[in-house]
């Protein structure tokens, strides 16, 4: 025993390195556990408050662009005030409550931290559980899809940006009504990739990609991007399409968190179908 201790002491630098490195690797491997642990309450509290204060200072430099964007968004919304209602059939149902049939509820949030440099990019927002924000809510801005909420604390939430290797969004070529999967393969933060689009459809550059509405998370018809390069490898049955993101993910200011009020119901139903098989 004495010899072992003496050995460890002699090489204490190496052993301490081993311990710390393994601790770091455990943190990486158990990300999901770590996120739900007590630790995140402390870390989110500290980092959230500092980032929030800092963004309070820096956001003044973006006010002009932000205003223009919001004004444009307002015009668009005025033109389609009933779009968020799943039922507008006033003949069979007496609509006394204009909130009837609303499926999506929007919460305004401010981006207080955002990265585009990493392989897995995350965005921090200044709204959390206290404001009714939970996992698996969609995040969009006036231009298009931004990401999905992955974890929350009382006052803050982390959003998995579409610029993340774990991000998979069901997308649709709007003109053709054909579905594919939107992923990000790294590199430029302006360009995403649409895969799983069958090779027989005639896709063109300039086609719009929007959300399909099949995902329980995103509402239908939120812009994702416009097709840029179309590639079809010999022998492949699916296209690999490079597209430009609709939202400028590098200069996010104000975003909307979208809650699907039927999410639970939809998930239950899909689960039943899968169970019955």
């Amino acid at each position, binding site marked *: 025993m004495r010899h072992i201790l003496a050995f460890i002491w002699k090489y204490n630098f190496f052993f301490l390195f081993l311990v710390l490195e393994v601790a*770091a690797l455990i943190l990486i491997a158990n990300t999901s556990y770590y996120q739900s642990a007590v630790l995140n309450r402390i870390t989110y509290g500290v980092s959230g408050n500092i980032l929030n204060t800092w963004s309070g200072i820096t956001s003044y430099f973006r006010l002009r662009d932000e205003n223009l964007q919001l004004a444009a968004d307002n015009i668009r919304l005025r033109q389609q005030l009933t779009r968020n209602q799943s039922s507008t059939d006033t003949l069979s149902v007496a609509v006394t409550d204009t909130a009837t049939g609303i499926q999506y509820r929007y919460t305004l949030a401010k981006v207080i931290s955002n990265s585009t440099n990493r392989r897995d990019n995350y965005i921090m927002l200044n709204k959390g559980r206290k404001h009714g924000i939970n996992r698996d809510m969609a995040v969009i801005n006036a231009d298009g899809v931004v990401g999905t909420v992955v974890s929350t604390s009382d006052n803050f939430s982390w959003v998995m940006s579409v610029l993340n290797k774990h991000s998979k969004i069901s997308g649709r070529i709007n003109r053709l009504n054909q579905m594919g999967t939107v992923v990000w393969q790294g590199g430029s933060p302006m360009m995403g990739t649409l895969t799983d689009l069958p090779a027989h459809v005639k896709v063109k550059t300039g086609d719009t990609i929007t959300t399909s509405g099949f995902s329980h998370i995103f509402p239908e018809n939120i812009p994702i991007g416009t097709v840029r390069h179309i590639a079809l490898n010999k022998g492949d049955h699916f296209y690999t399409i490079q597209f430009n993101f609709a939202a400028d993910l590098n200069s996010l200011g104000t975003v909307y968190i979208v809650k699907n009020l039927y999410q639970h119901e939809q998930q239950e139903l899909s689960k039943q179908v899968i169970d019955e098989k």
Partner: protein
Amino acid sequence: MKNNYGNDILRFILLVAIQVLVLNQIDFGGYIDPALYLLFILLLPFEVPGWLLLISSFFLGFSVDIFSHSTGLHTAASVFAAFVRPGVINMVGKPAEYEASLKPGIADMGFRWFFIYALLIVLAHHFVLFSLEAFRFEEFLYVLLRILASTAFTLVFIITTEYIFMRKRH
């Protein structure tokens, strides 16, 4: 000679703040993710004990991690960078005993020494960081490109900062 780590603590806080509040929020075009905070590990005095070097680097990486939701990535990379530091110092040349007041910066050791020293440690750090980040062999080329591009950028940032804050020896 008794060492006073006051400057190092101040540098720790400043570098983490600049890293997470400024550098992490700027887009450098997809492949580049500079890590200026490594300057803390580089500038720790030669006589820093091994355990202090490792543990302070652990907390350095951890601080950057909690601000960027990259749990453990920067921690692992920083601890590795700290681990290779003594070896790198031996390789590029350690000052003799009687020069104990020398610090590992451009002012004391010269540009050439500091450049090679910084290059090796930054490479070690970026190698661990970007390999763990992608964690897929199919992205090998992407990771390699990221390591090289980011190393170049990090070095530019580190050397510029070193020149700006360099104190001339009298």
